[in-house]
């Protein structure tokens, strides 16, 4: 630890208003576009926009894609298994939230 550098930074909020093309999404995830298309085909990622020329991904898709890629790499999962894991994790999170809520009411 030595140098200190001070600067103020404005981040980009990754939300539903963020729009990324397939290429940009690939860069943000450090993944090639074919890999991302596989995730779309498996239903892990849902592109938005009406016709193919204006298709885009939002911030949720970025987080989703990164999570899917981490799970695939670290747990050595195939795409279909990754989709299942993500769905089960969503369900788990929903149940945890319900539990938190009922704990809160019971207090």
């Amino acid at each position, binding site marked *: 630890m030595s140098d200190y550098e001070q600067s103020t930074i404005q981040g980009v909020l990754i939300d539903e208003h963020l729009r990324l093309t397939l290429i940009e999404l690939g860069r943000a995830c450090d993944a090639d576009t074919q890999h991302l298309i596989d995730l779309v085909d498996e239903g892990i990622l849902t592109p938005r926009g009406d016709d193919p020329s204006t298709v885009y991904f939002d911030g949720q898709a970025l987080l989703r894609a990164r999570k899917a890629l981490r799970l695939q790499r670290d747990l050595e999962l195939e795409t279909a298994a990754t989709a299942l894991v993500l769905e089960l994790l969503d369900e788990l999170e929903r149940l*945890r939230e319900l539990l938190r809520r009922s704990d809160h009411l019971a207090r």
Partner: protein
Amino acid sequence: MEFKDYYATLGVERSATQEEIKRSYRKLARKFHPDVSKEPDAEERFKAVAEAYKALGDPERRAAYDSVGSGHQGNQEFHPPPGWDSGFEFSGADAGFGGEQSEFFESLFGRHAGAGRRAQAPQHANGADHHAKVRISLADSYRGATRSITLQVPQADAAGHLTLQSRQLEVNIPKGIRDGQHLRLAGQGSPGTGRGMAGDLYLEIAFAPDPHFRVEGRDVYLDLPVAPWEAALGAAMAVATPDGSVELRVPPASSPGRKLRLKGKGLPGNPSGDLYAVLSIALPPADTDAAKAAYAELAKACGSFDPRHSMKEAPGV
């Protein structure tokens, strides 16, 4: 530098087969992967397991580790023999949770020895993304905030030695940010090599648990205890919100669980969320003669009130 016993980390014998090492890694990875596990130290545990697997999962690297590692125990002081690694070339790109290695790993296999091995180090590679979690209070989201974040970035000095440089960033936390949202700070990750671009820094926002408020999306809930007469007769009261006090009117004949909405008083945004006060009824203790008499009066006045009315209609009771 401490010697790391990768066999102990994976919980396998030194004589384990590659298949056993892989099986043990997968089992531990499923248990501690930060996307799956809610254990507070999951990320640390997973990184240790991933590093051990990176070293032992590759037979060539494992042989190298065994040759320097024989006779060492975990946590012992360790110095790699000079020039021992000539003849090995490890390189590759990696990212994500398993992407950072310990000093020990890098002294054995080189700094860029990731999971994916390539014959040659890429001339132009994008820098790795970094992740950090920032804990903020609910009030920070209501008002916006600035957070100071300290990052440790490995950097080679003039002599080629790696040192950890610490870099401090002042980050603006925008008003109305929600729990679990991410901020992307472009170019604040690891620097790229050659013409590669620097990685990004992702900040995940986590709300510190609040004793009074609960957040769902943009809406904020609070439990509001009221006295029986306030619920029955109606009352006006001052209620503390994360952004100051507001005047709230409890309508007459309110029952517990009733949600009173304060429009636009949730997390700010476009549109702003709402604040809901959820009524609960607190009973005053009957600990004085006057209070006991008042309860008795109430019983007399509400003679036909039966709180177990619905239970009598239940079948089988």
